[in-house]
């Protein structure tokens, strides 16, 4: 079968399974909130994917942007009594502002410097949330009521399943936007930056402005994910912004396959379900998760989906119909 057609077919199967998830998951003893978490974390892992998988820059502070989205929701609901849509917009805008702020320091940095700086600036947001007790509740975090959804003069209250479908809808839209982005000249430029930024500059393109837009896309994805997560669990706490959480998002993106469109979803699925199943078996589940992660980094640097796609492409005589960028290590001397 043509690889392109195989790609479309498997995408369709995944979407159908996700649409049926609320009906399927109870048979496996899984609450729908777990499936919501998979989708939300996948969206956050996509922000890592935009930066690391496609642009080749390690965004290791994605949790800070995720957390800004979450705090945008909780702050706007608590202090402004914002509605459903407004609170989510508030979260995304806050995440974008945070992204703009750090991008001022990040833009001329590449490689590992970029990665370390994203960790460090992420920690600033973490400590601000942690220390501003009067506003954010500090360590205890913020709890709040789920906002109502206003439409044409009517109020809707979202419950678990409805919220799942809304989250899924937004996720699929962002995924579609992302897929479209990777096909566009803009997306190709990002991949070119990953492969050889010097050449991109010599072609007359200002690579910094491309990186800035990629950062903003990543910030919007992470912020949107954080906002939806906050609305789903009705609680926001500083640890969401901590670099450990960033590491988990990075783990999901790399586990599934950085540089593939569906990789972050697969990674988030394995992470969330793995945690769910392992934590019922042993309290020391992180040992296994960490172990799986270590094995993956050594054995499958392209991630699960990246490895599968590479194998399919190789079987196809090395001809790529589905344009999946190589998960080649980016140069450190850019």
């Amino acid at each position, binding site marked *: 079968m043509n690889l392109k057609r195989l790609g479309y077919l498997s995408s369709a199967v995944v979407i159908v399974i996700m649409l049926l998830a609320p009906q399927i998951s109870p048979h496996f003893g899984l609450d729908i909130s777990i499936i919501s978490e998979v989708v939300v974390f996948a969206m956050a892992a996509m922000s890592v994917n935009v930066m690391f998988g496609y642009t080749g820059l390690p965004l290791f502070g994605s949790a800070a942007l995720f957390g800004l989205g979450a705090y945008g929701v909780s702050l706007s609901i608590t202090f402004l009594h914002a509605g459903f849509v407004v609170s989510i917009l508030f979260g995304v805008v806050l995440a974008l502002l945070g992204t703009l702020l750090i991008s001022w320091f990040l833009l001329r940095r590449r490689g590992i410097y970029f*990665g370390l700086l994203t960790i460090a600036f992420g920690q600033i947001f973490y*400590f601000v949330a942690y220390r501003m007790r009067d506003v954010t509740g500090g360590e205890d975090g913020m709890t709040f009521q789920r906002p109502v959804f206003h439409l044409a003069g009517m109020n809707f209250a979202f419950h678990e399943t409805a919220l799942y479908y809304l989250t899924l809808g937004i996720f699929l839209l962002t995924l579609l936007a992302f897929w479209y982005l990777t096909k566009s000249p803009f997306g190709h430029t990002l991949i070119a930056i990953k492969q050889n930024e010097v050449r991109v500059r010599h072609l007359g393109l200002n690579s910094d402005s491309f990186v800035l837009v990629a950062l903003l896309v990543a910030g919007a994805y992470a912020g949107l994910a954080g906002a939806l997560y906050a609305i789903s669990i009705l609680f926001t706490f500083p640890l969401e912004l901590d*670099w450990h959480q960033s590491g988990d998002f990075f783990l999901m993106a790399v586990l599934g396959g950085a540089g593939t469109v569906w990789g972050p979803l697969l990674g988030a699925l394995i992470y969330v379900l793995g945690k769910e199943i392992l934590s019922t078996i042993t309290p020391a589940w*992180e040992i296994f998760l*960490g172990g799986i992660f*270590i094995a993956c980094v050594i054995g499958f640097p392209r991630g699960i989906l990246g490895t599968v796609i590479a194998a399919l492409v190789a079987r196809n005589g090395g001809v790529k119909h589905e344009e999946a960028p190589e998960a080649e290590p980016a140069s450190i001397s850019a």
Partner: protein
Amino acid sequence: MDQLLPSVFNGLILGAFYAVVALGLSLIMNLTGTINLAHTSFLTLAGYLAFSLVLAGSPYWLALILAPLLTVVVGIIAERTLIRPLYGRDPIYSLLLTFGLALVAEEAFRLIWGANGVPFTPPPSLAGTVQLGFMAYPVYRLFIALVLIIVIAALTLFLRGTQFGLRLRAAVLDSEMIAALGTNTQLLYMINFGIGILLAGVAGVLSAGLLGLNPTSGNALLMPAFICVIIGGMGSLLGSIAGGILIGVVIALTTLYIPAASEVSMYILMAVVLSIRPRGLFGEEGLFG
């Protein structure tokens, strides 16, 4: 004013801790491009090993030497089995791998030594305070300062004055050429990693008596150490030391005057330094982009 001097002193000692941890990070990073997020896990491990040694009847002084050495053994095993396959690949993979390793280590500490902290107090001979003339100061802190100064001096002499140090510094510049000239670079990488872990180990045993010992106690030193490396500039060991001292003093002063900003101050310092000097205070241009 009477609080200022002790605060600055505390800051200097804290800064020396950061510097020693950052030196280990720097050594490992400079030679092989390995970003060791598990660095402070080794620090915690050394603290726990010292605790167990003392519990088993060993004198404190023996534990202070033995625990870091045992930690080095664990570190070298990790380097040979896990980190070695990643040499030559993008540093981000080593960052991810050591992140996984840190997760595993934290849970392992929890399983072996319990989720709650364990008490690890320095021996009676290091208890109490000493009158310095202008202020009274805890003996243990002075002892820490002394050990850290000796460690930093010994490392500097080792790197500047021995054949090994020469090879190491040459390998940072061009490891292929060093290999072609007959140096066993794999051995060099291993010993270098061991030295980095040894520094973390010494800091671990000393900090256990000062900051406490629990499965996550080392984590508090990881970010400051990375900030030291960034502020001081990657590729420069002097930078790590200067960064450590600078951060320690800035944290001490903000803790004294603006307590709410104590954790954020070093990040703000980093932002200021980087906007003036993008490659850090003593960083070499071009190294690590």
